[in-house]
């Protein structure tokens, strides 16, 4: 088991290097820092000196990969690639274009992101499972039929509609909770409750329908027939046997997204004004602050790989038949 984990962690390194090379190529080779400077400065203020100053302030004035003017090891380290890409490996994200420390921003913004993402994740899974179990219990009846119909309909609605509609109805017409904003401590509840409800509702369509097929697949298996044959009630079969076995694919499917919860939700956070990592990323994209985008890409990749690792481990925990070697 430990050997397996170590090997998986080592396997993550080439993937992170790949991610790094790819973002480096996108941000520095396809478009040179000069292009970026021109874009940031705007058409009016572009002069060669202004571009040089912009680059120097942000450390983009060095050569890309190989510095001929330096000596020894500095030839490799005094370059953009080393400064901007290699340092990400030790989580040294550097400064954003406005001069603020990215690592500090990330650590302060993680809390609000989690305050929103964790409840959505947990409540969402519980709601989806209950809804799916209900459809599986009443399978091949009108309740099941209309359940599936409403799932397909809900899947077809744009996520933006849930957000805009919910904000309008609950905050603007009914004045139940503030439209947007965030506060620390217990005050956070009144800001977070609406986005959580919307996030859960938005996920029901696809989630419940998927879980329903998982449960129905389990119901068709032999052990369920045996359980019924020995005289168990349908509810006991469903909760005691089908639910337990159905949880294996559900849990492993859910575990992979746990680490990425840290990144927050792009749309929710920017619509509800929650100062988390999602809105940070959106603001960075809209302000074209590439340093932040690079940092978030790297962080996202690390968390994704962590998710894959957790998935494999959780397989062995929930399903003793699986052995990792």
């Amino acid at each position, binding site marked *: 088991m430990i050997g397996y984990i170590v090997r998986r962690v080592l396997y993550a390194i080439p993937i992170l290097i790949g991610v790094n090379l790819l973002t480096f190529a*996108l941000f520095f080779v396809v478009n040179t820092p000069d292009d970026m400077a021109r874009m940031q400065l705007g058409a009016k203020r572009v002069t060669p000196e202004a571009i040089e100053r912009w680059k120097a302030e942000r450390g983009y004035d060095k050569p890309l990969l190989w510095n001929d003017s330096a000596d020894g090891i500095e030839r490799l380290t005094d370059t953009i690639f080393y400064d901007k890409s290699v340092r990400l490996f030790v989580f040294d994200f550097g400064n954003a274009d406005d001069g603020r420390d990215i690592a500090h921003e990330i650590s302060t913004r993680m809390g609000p992101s989690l305050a929103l993402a964790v409840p959505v994740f947990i409540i969402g899974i519980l709601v989806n499972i209950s809804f799916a179990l209900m459809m599986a219990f009443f399978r091949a009846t009108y309740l099941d039929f209309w359940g599936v119909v409403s799932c397909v309909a809900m899947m077809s609605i744009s996520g933006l509609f849930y957000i805009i509609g919910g904000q309008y109805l609950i905050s603007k017409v009914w004045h139940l909770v503030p439209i947007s904003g965030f506060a620390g401590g217990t005050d956070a509840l009144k800001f977070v409750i609406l986005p959580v409800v919307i996030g859960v509702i938005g996920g029901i369509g696809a989630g419940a329908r998927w879980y329903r097929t998982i449960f129905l697949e389990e119901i068709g298996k032999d052990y369920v027939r045996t359980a019924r044959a020995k005289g168990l009630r349908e509810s006991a079969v469903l909760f005691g046997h089908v639910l337990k076995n159905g949880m294996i694919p559900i849990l492993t499917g859910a575990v992979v997204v746990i680490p990425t919860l840290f990144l927050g939700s792009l749309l929710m956070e920017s619509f509800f004004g929650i100062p988390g990592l999602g809105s940070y990323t959106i603001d960075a994209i809209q302000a074209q602050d590439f340093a932040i985008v690079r940092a978030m890409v790297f962080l996202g990749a690390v968390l994704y790989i962590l998710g894959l690792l957790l998935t494999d481990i959780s397989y062995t925990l929930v399903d003793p038949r699986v052995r990792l070697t």
Partner: protein
Amino acid sequence: MPFQPVILWTDALVFLLLAVLIGVVVYVRKREHLRKPWQRVSQSPSGMVGAVVLAFFVVIGLLDSLHFRVRLDGAAPAGKSVYAVEITSVLDQMLSSLRQRPEKTYSAPLAYRSYARETVELPGGRQVREYPRLTHGGAHLKDPEKEWAGDVGRRVLAGGAIGFILWLLTGTILCAAIAHRSGSSLDRAWLSVMRGELDVPWRAILMTVGLLLILASITATLAAKYHVLGTSKVGEDVLYQSLKSIRTALVIGTLTTLVMLPFAILLGIAAGYFKGWADDIIQYLYTTLNAIPAVLLIAAAVLMMQVYIDTRPQAFPTAMERADLRLLFLCAILGVTSWTGLCRLLRGETLKLRELDYIQAAQAFGVGHARIITRHILPNVMHIVLIAVVMEFSGLVLAEAVLSYVGVGVDPSMTSFGTMINAARLEMARDPMVWWSLASAFGFMFLLVLSANLFADAVRDAFDPRVAVKPFRFSLRGALRKKAAT
């Protein structure tokens, strides 16, 4: 020539896709084993309803993909023709009455007065603040307060009646075709269609066609004199915007898969078939791509594209061509980020297939790799590809709206559901609320995605051998009849 055709990049690819589709249809029609699953699709009521609505959208999208420049009369010197700078499509020409009736600013659906108050000077020199009459919407009414309701009602009735007659005509033609095929009489065919006795759910199809026809003709009669869905901030007709957005959504939903398929099929099958180091490299490739959050990768690539375009303005002669290239690039980058899922599925399936006896036998006989892959493996994974493509479509349409909201979607000058929502979002705070742009964008998008989802489900049920659970049939009578027949 009265016009000069212009073929944009996406147009060319859309029609290439159409040609491929027609080719596939011709190929499949001749082969019994390929036709069979499609017959199952055609027997699913929900799937066929989805297909009808989808077909309606596709026709609009195709009409909007035929671009040209109109010849300008008069100004041209002898022997030479001068064409307009503006590129228009066949759809634009058909909707020219919508396009060329701009108002000053917002107006509600079917309104005859503007949304915003204006200072109007009365003949006596006095000034009043009032809601001015629209220049086009309801301009034919002399006394709008009294006439408006009656006029709208009459138009709805007239449009509904025309739609109903059109529907009866299509229904009769369809039944005549069915009667001709089965050799029975016309009213017999009507009866069996309406009772749902045929394999193909013609009743559901006809109902959908009828609903679409009636709605379309009501809209058309109303649109002659009103702005059916209101106007936007700059006074553009929202119905026109919505219809134009359909093409953008369809292009993103289809061309992306066109980009994705070669990657997914080639790499997926190669990884599963050759195993060893090829498998390692391909797995590494898609894990790396997957590790980057999709939105960020798309954002990064689109931002780079933006920098590229902004620093090279001379490369793009018109705004339309620039927007079109940006759309194509968006499709490409969406394709690059979304091929990994299908690739993994294909790899897994190929790994299973290559151990099967018939492929082992082919290898033992010395059949080459290329031939084994094209003859034996590819046909046996095509159902996965097909299911993935139809399932992907609706997700891509929804993704476009989100990406445009984030600011990394289509060009702001291009009409799409995302840009419509983005522009209308800020108007929610106004009082009274400007809801019509938002509602139309969401409504059209919902209809498109829902029909695509229904169709995709039918395709999956028909093609996926693993679907163990029989989809619940809505019609109890049909089930009973089947039981009686066996």
